[in-house]
Every structure is written in structure tokens, then in C-alpha cells.
């Protein structure tokens, strides 16, 4: 983890309420796809945890959805805004586990962390398949970007207005070596039931600190209690304990 000042370079709408922000600065704290950063926003007490979408040199890309007042303020920030950010939080995805033909599944704002993961996997010579799930056609983003990396990219929409009708689990390929997923919990549960290989799941929880100090985001797993922010957000399929 590092505490750094990052400067907003660009902050644009991708859909009605999903925004893409690029930031410039020292990003050496970020060590793996699937990690997140925690952003201080003026007049809000807690930081806002946002997953890393892309990292190229000293440029960081975040894609976030406006879900409350803090992210609404974020969405209005202009170029040149300087932000106090904790970088390199969480464990991230383990690329070593992915095999030769990994499957990446992202739902809604669970799509962004799949991008840097896909990029790294493609770079290391893997044959990457991606399934991006959204509620409806107007919410779709980053399909072209994944395709441009060379991934076999499919889009599903719940209402069938774009791509394959249904959930990401309705578009699973015949075979894959391993899977990585991020999205809302109902999607994660469906992926858990529908997949046949080992896999990694990224979880979300309301956080206090984001770096393991407060125990605000703890969960129970088959291998003991874990802090989503520090021991996660990525958990392996075999350690997940679903609580009803």
C-alpha cells in the first residue's frame, strides 16, 4: 500500500451512470489486477474504494458507477483535480492459477477489474475468453476494449436487448482452464454453481479503512475469518462459505 497524490487527467461518462476516470501519478503500489484504490473525497469522511481497471506506466484507469453522494461528487471532478489515494489495496487475482485458457466473467461494475487481468493474461500468451453481463443494452461498456485485446468476448443482457439474452452463466463456453469473476453477489453465487473448474471470486463489502485495520468488512470462509479489504477481495472457489 502507498499513499499518493494522483491528478485527474480525464473523467468521462461511459453510460448514464458509469464513469471512466484516468489519473496520473506514482502507481508503484499497485502489484496485481483485482486490487483496488481508496480515494479521499472532500467533505466525505470515509474513502471510496474503487477497483483498478487499467494500469499503464503512471496512468491509472478507474471505472465507477454513481451509487451515492460520494461517487456523484467524483463524477463531476474535472481534469487537474488532485486526489489523496491509497493504492495497491487487497490481494488481487493470482495469474499463476489461470492455466492456458482462462474464462473471465464480469457483471456490471464488476467488469472493470477484468480488463487489466485480461490484458496481463493475453500478454503472457493465454487464450482468454470474456463474458460481460449487464442488465440492458444501454448499460454495456468496454466490449470493444476487451475484443481489441484479442479476447473472445461475449456480452449478455438480462432483458436480451443486446448480445445474448440472460446472465453470464447462460453464455459459458464448452471448456476453460480456470475462471475469474467479479460482480454482484447473486451473479457470484450463480457462477459458483455453474462452473466446473477452479476459480477466483472478487467480493464487495462496506469498508472502514480498506487496509485491514478496522475489521469492518470481515467474512467467514472455509479457511477462517478473512478481511475482504486485506485478505481479499479475491477469494478462491474452494475457500468460499456462502451464508444465507
Amino acid at each position, binding site marked *: *500500500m502507498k*499513499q499518493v497524490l494522483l491528478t485527474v487527467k480525464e473523467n468521462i461518462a461511459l453510460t448514464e451512470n458509469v464513469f471512466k476516470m484516468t489519473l496520473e501519478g506514482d502507481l508503484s503500489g499497485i502489484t496485481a489486477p483485482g486490487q483496488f484504490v481508496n480515494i*479521499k473525497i472532500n467533505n*466525505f*469522511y*470515509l*474513502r471510496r474504494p474503487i477497483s483498478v481497471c487499467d494500469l499503464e506506466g503512471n496512468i491509472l484507469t478507474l471505472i465507477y458507477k454513481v451509487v451515492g453522494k*460520494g461517487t456523484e461528487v467524483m463524477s463531476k471532478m474535472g481534469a487537474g483535480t488532485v486526489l489523496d489515494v*491509497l493504492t495497491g489495496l487487497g490481494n488481487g487475482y493470482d495469474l499463476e492459477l489461470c492455466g492456458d485458457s482462462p474464462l473471465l466473467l464480469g457483471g456490471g461494475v464488476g467488469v472493470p477489474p477484468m480488463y487489466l487481468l485480461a490484458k496481463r493474461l493475453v500478454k503472457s500468451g493465454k487464450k482468454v475468453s470474456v463474458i460481460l453481463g449487464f442488465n440492458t443494452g444501454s448499460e454495456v461498456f468496454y466490449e470493444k476494449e476487451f475484443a481489441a485485446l484479442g479476447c473472445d468476448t461475449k456480452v449478455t443482457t438480462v432483458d436480451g436487448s443486446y448480445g445474448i439474452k440472460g446472465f453470464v452463466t447462460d453464455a459459458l463456453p464448452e471448456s476453460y482452464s480456470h475462471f475469474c469473476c467479479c460482480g454482484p453477489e447473486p451473479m457470484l453465487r450463480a457462477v459458483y454453481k455453474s462452473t466446473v473448474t477452479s476459480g477466483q471470486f472478487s467480493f464487495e*463489502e*462496506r*469498508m*472502514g*479503512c480498506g*487496509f*485491514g*485495520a*478496522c*475489521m*469492518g*468488512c*470481515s*467474512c*467467514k470462509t472455509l479457511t477462517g*475469518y478473512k478481511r475482504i479489504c*486485506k485478505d481479499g477481495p479475491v477469494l478462491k472457489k474452494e475457500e468460499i462459505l456462502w451464508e444465507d
Partner: protein
Amino acid sequence: MGRLSVNLCGTELDNPVIPASGTFGFGYEFAELYDINCLGTFSFKGTTKEPRFGNPTPRIAECTEGLINSVGLQNPGVDEVIASELPKLKKCFHKPVMANVSGFSVSDYAYTCELLDKQEQVGFIEVNVSCPNVHSGGMSFGTEPSAAAEVTSAVKAVTAKPVIVKLSPNVTDIVSIAKACEQAGADAISLINTLMGMRIDLNKRQPVIKNKMGGFSGPAIFPVAVRMVYQVANAVNIPVVGMGGITTADDVIEMMMAGASAVEVGAANLINPFACRDIINDLPNALDRYKINNIRDIIGVVK
């Protein structure tokens, strides 16, 4: 003795800044970020007789200038703390540490304190009779003078280390509880623990926190803390450790002028992991700003 040094129950602290229990784990997350030996000491994660997962999530809700938590004393239990956490801590922290203890019965408190008393690393025992997040325990001992005194006596009977009783602000007369603890042999009082609070998600029409209510901390509660520290410090003859929303070196000075011999910093650590280091580094400048020679000179100067 440096300008920042203070004496707490017979132990010299290099400075009065102590990270508060529950915001600093067992120290080593922070030791990755800075040398935590710059701290006066720190109060480690509230420890109970048995391991605890704590409350269901969400456990955190944001507020204006603060947050509500309902962690519920998640900790690995005293045996594991002694077997694993203290040896890990020994590698990165070389000062006497403050052990924070909670319980669900008087005998729980005594059991846990007796084990921690035998640990050389432990320099102080902070007895939490004020956790708002556990039922039939914690705070219930801190809302009645007689119950707080009973816990204090039981703990004093099993340890020779200084016992600091941590009080809840969720009471009508904190002074009577502080006095009862003093009479029962407490070596110091620390206050305030969190204020009971609640937030509601307007879209879901439900509390943000799964447990509905939790403990409210952060800069928003600082004035309440200063007032209560002032009241208690003027009523007892033992040292008072002040806490509640401290974020800056100026806050430290204000709390000490109100009567605190040392201070604890809680929520600020969660927002700025370097908060305690930054406060300590800024304290000499703050002393100059207010024409203070030594920080111990201002303890309780406000009458």
C-alpha cells in the same frame, strides 16, 4: 525527558499519542507503513476470553465527519493473542503495549487480564466496559457505577500492571462511574468510547448497519469527548486518557488542556493510516504555536 514526554501510571511515554483499540489491529499492518516505535504506546485490538467473529456485515456506515461501526469485538481470543499476535508484535514494537480487554462476565474480564498480566510486553491493561456493539456484555458493565467498580476490583485483584478503565459516553452521569472505578482501585480512566448511533438507507428503508445501531466516532464527537474528559478529570485524582475524534496536534493539545494526561487516536487511523505519525511530527510545531514548553505543563490547565 523530551518536550513531548508524559507519565502515564508511572511509565514514561515518549509522547502522549496512543492509537485507540480497534483502529490499529495488533500493530503490524501499520508497521509496514511506518516505524510504530514513534508512538507513545498503542492499545491493541479488544481481546476476549474466547475467539469472536463479531457482528454480521455491513458493519460500517459513513456519517458527517465520522463513521458508525458495529464490528462487535472480532478477535482471535486471548490464547491466540498470546500465542501468535504478541510474538509478531514483538518484532515491530519495542515499547510496553496497552492490552485492551473486554468480557461478558466479571470472571471473563479477570480470566483474560490474568493471562495478559503475565506477558512481559504488556505495560498497561485497558479494561473496556463500554463496547456498544455486544449484547449482554461490554457496555452494560460501564453504565452502572457498581458494575464498573466490580469489574475494576476483579481485574485489579489479578494484575499488578496499571489498570485503565475505558468508559462509555452513553450514560447520564459519567462522573459517578469514573469515581466508582477510582474507588475500586483503577489506576487511570480512559474516555470516551463511541456514542451509540444509527443511519438509515433511504432507498432500502433499512438501517445501513446490519445490527441496526453501532458506535459513532470521528471528529464529530470531539466536543462531547472534550467536555466529558474535562468533567472526569476534575472529579478524580487518577490520570485520564482522553479520546474521541482527535485528528490533529491541536486536538491533542485541546484534550490535554481539558485534563487528559495522554490521548488516544481512533477513527483518524482508518482515514489516514499515517495519522498518528503525522500528529506526533506536528506536535513540536503546535507547542511552539501556543507557546508551550513541555506538553505535560498543559495537562488540565483549563479550570
